[in-house]
């Protein structure tokens, strides 16, 4: 039978699937169908149940009620990734790699190439190298995962999924941590897989990507199925509206110009540290400064150095004109400078704890009264955080690791803001966050700046940088290659600096 004949046949389907965790219901009678050779996008707000549905479709969760059909036949999918043997492969939203092991070991984990019980390491390494070359990844099969950047890790996940002979490939926010260039390469592979008849489900909060790559889109809201439509029948606005359930105004708030004479709150001069080279820049009061660049260009390193997380080799940092070389995060925090990590799983949140201890962890000294922690104040802070950042957890006692990705990100933001900083550095602020909340976060950032705080936004999402920043510094290989102002802030300029094609000599 040819592919064309059977395109209408559903390869994988969920019928009236519901799911609850304990007493908390998160999916309500959702139906979903996947055709052979299609790319089917799953979109919805944070906590809508996308990840949960994907896990059910790959056997990692069992539905509380409803049925799963594979090739039209009812089936109970085996647990723990064993449905790979049925050709169903899942990439988790949370990175799912063994950190101490190598790229090759991770990619082949669970289906190693062996002969007579021995590993064919050479063959496997060669195969991995092949895939890495196809995706243009500059890493070695023998690199250990813990030494990779988070985007590289995501690419490894993608390689891992692609290297398996999948009939159904399910990817939960695969592009959340990728730059556009990487996304581009990735989509090429998706296209190739699609041509060979693989059915693909993927979720994303980047609606333009959805528009670009998906054949059909299923929209979910609050654990319910809302609609399944052909992509060409949907505009970006329509998608957003269906997701959020109301009309969205403009995504980016208007930029208030920064006062020309605004005082300089942070000045960095000739900063050198591991993987960064002679960094100098200034940040004004009330300013939103963007940091753009390719993955691994050293943006994170700059601010980890400033915040006392990375040893400074040379150079000066001035906070409000005072020389400030912090050796610990606590010093930076007390001086009103905080950094929000891009790696929320490794550095951001205690996944095994509940929300409240996570929220107050950074600002905890503030909650001490009579030598003990004031639990009431903590509770009030929790309520405030939930309100301010619209954190949606159906069960307030849920452990953070069980929250949806986007809500974790919101909690992380709330945690950072608990310390009432004067300068906030936000690394990838909207990673994995839905459009509705994105808008809230942008408004929030703008409001902070308007209140006289200064914000640094490190982001790999060009529109975001362009949409909210007053000025943009672009980095390339550990150096700042340019600082853009006003109308210079546009995609082609940034890309040119980010690729190292242009460089302007800074003068202080």
């Amino acid at each position, binding site marked *: 039978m040819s592919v064309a004949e059977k395109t209408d046949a559903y390869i994988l389907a969920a019928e009236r699937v519901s799911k609850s*965790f*304990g007493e908390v219901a998160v999916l309500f009678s959702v139906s979903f169908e996947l055709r052979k050779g299609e790319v089917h996008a799953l979109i919805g707000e944070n906590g809508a149940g996308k990840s949960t549905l994907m896990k059910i479709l790959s056997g990692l*969760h*069992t539905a509380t009620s409803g049925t799963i059909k594979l090739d039209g036949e009812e089936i109970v999918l085996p*647990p723990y990734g064993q449905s790979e043997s049925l050709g169903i492969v899942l990439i988790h939203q949370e990175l799912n790699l063994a950190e101490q092991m190598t790229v090759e070991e991770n990619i082949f984990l669970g289906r190693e190439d062996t002969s007579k019980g021995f590993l064919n390491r050479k063959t496997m390494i060669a195969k991995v190298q092949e895939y890495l070359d196809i995706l243009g990844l500059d890493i070695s099969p023998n690199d250990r995962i813990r030494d990779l950047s988070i985007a590289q890790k995501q690419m490894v996940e993608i390689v891992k999924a692609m290297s398996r002979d999948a009939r159904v490939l399910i990817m939960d926010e695969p592009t959340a941590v990728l730059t556009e260039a990487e996304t581009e390469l990735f989509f090429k592979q998706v296209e190739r897989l699609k041509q060979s008849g693989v059915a693909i489900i993927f979720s994303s909060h980047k609606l333009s990507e959805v528009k670009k790559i998906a054949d059909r889109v299923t929209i979910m809201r609050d654990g319910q199925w809302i609609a399944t439509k052909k992509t060409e029948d949907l505009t970006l606005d329509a998608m957003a509206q269906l997701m959020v359930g109301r009309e969205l105004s403009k995504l980016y708030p208007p930029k208030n110009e920064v006062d020309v004479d605004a005082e300089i709150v942070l000045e960095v001069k000739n900063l050198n540290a591991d993987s960064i080279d002679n960094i100098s820049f200034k940040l004004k009061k009330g300013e939103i400064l963007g940091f753009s660049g390719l993955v691994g260009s050293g943006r994170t390193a700059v601010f980890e150095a400033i915040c006392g*997380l990375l040893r400074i080799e040379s150079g000066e940092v001035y906070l409000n004109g005072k020389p400030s070389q912090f050796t*610990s*995060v*606590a010093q*930076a*925090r007390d001086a009103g400078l905080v*950094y929000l*990590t891009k790696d929320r799983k*490794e*550095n*951001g*949140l*205690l*996944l*095994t*704890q509940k929300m409240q*201890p996570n929220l107050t*962890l*950074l600002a*905890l*000294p503030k909650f*001490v009264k009579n*030598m*003990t*922690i004031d639990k009431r104040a903590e509770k009030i802070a929790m309520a405030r955080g939930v309100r301010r950042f619209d954190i949606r957890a159906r069960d307030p006692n849920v452990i953070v690791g069980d929250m949806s990705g986007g809500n974790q990100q919101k909690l992380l933001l709330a*945690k950072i803001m608990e*310390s009432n900083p004067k300068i906030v550095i936000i690394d990838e602020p909207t990673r994995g966050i839905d459009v509705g909340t994105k808008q809230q976060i942008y408004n929030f950032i703008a409001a902070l700046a308007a209140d006289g705080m200064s914000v640094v936004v490190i982001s790999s999402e060009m529109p975001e940088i362009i949409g909210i920043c007053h000025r943009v510094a672009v980095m390339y290989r550990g150096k700042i290659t340019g600082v853009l102002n006003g109308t210079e802030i546009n995609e082609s300029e940034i890309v040119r600096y980010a690729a190292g094609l242009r460089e302007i000599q800074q003068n202080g």
Partner: protein
Amino acid sequence: MVEDNVNVAESRAVHKWLRKFDLKTMGPAIALIILCIIGYSLNTAFLSDGNITNLLTRSAFIGIIAVGATFVITAGGIDLSVGSMAAVISGLMIMIMNNALETFGTGITTVLIGCGCSIILGVGAGWVNGFLTTKGKIEAFIVTLGTMGIYRSLVTYFADGGTLSLDFDLRDTYGPIYYGSFLGLPIPVWVFIAVSILGWILLNRTLFGRYCTAIGSNESVAKYSAINVDRIKTYTYIIQGLCVAMATIIYVPRLGSASASTGVLWELEAIAAVIIGGTVLKGGYGRIVGTILGALILTTIGNILNFTDLISNYLNGTMQGLIIIVAVWLQRADWKKGSNK
């Protein structure tokens, strides 16, 4: 219809209550109660005043040490040196008091000097463990395995292989710390209670306790959350050392001696008490109340075995091992089915 709702509400309430009354946290208490019932049925003297007092007093040593161990383990560490540390501190304390005797007489001063030195030594020994673990970046297991050997051999050295004995004249002054009572409870039990309450407050109500938990859950998150990881970890070892010193202070007046066999295997008992109590060995979750119950369980097992001759003496270890495994299994096994993550 209305009735139905009531029923649902009721069943929810029951359910909620059942959840609160969770085997996982009640496990140690239930295990202890079962043990007491067994003990009583073997011999009614088990619940006699005298025996209960003996039991509590004995639990005090391991219990106090285990309270310290709860901090270390909650913050993701481990301390294998506590038994040897207790031995060497006892030994030094005895030597110091015997010396001080000449200058300060048999009065309370000498005892106070001894206790003071004990605390200084405990803090110092804890600091050494903490320093080597954090600044030396050596696994706690290895550091404390090393110091365990070192302290043990030092006490043998000081005692010349034998026993260091407290001067008999001092025993009358110092003895009441162990043998005395206050409001019907022996002093060591009061100390145990005090240490437990302080420990509970410290772990559950203060910055420090919260930081321990955070470090045990994820060190790097703790670091990014402005926690001075090395310092807090070092403090946990210092607290452990302090607890050992406290235990030593009430141990020494009991028999007034220390030797190479003092405190052998206390480290494993303390760790067992902590884990039986529900604290997670990998860190990130600690329970002081559980630890105290764990210490009581361990002492009770030994006590019960002394109360019966049903079981060959040689099989004491077997019973202990079995009970420990069962007690932990009661807590850890999946009681509620269904959560098929």
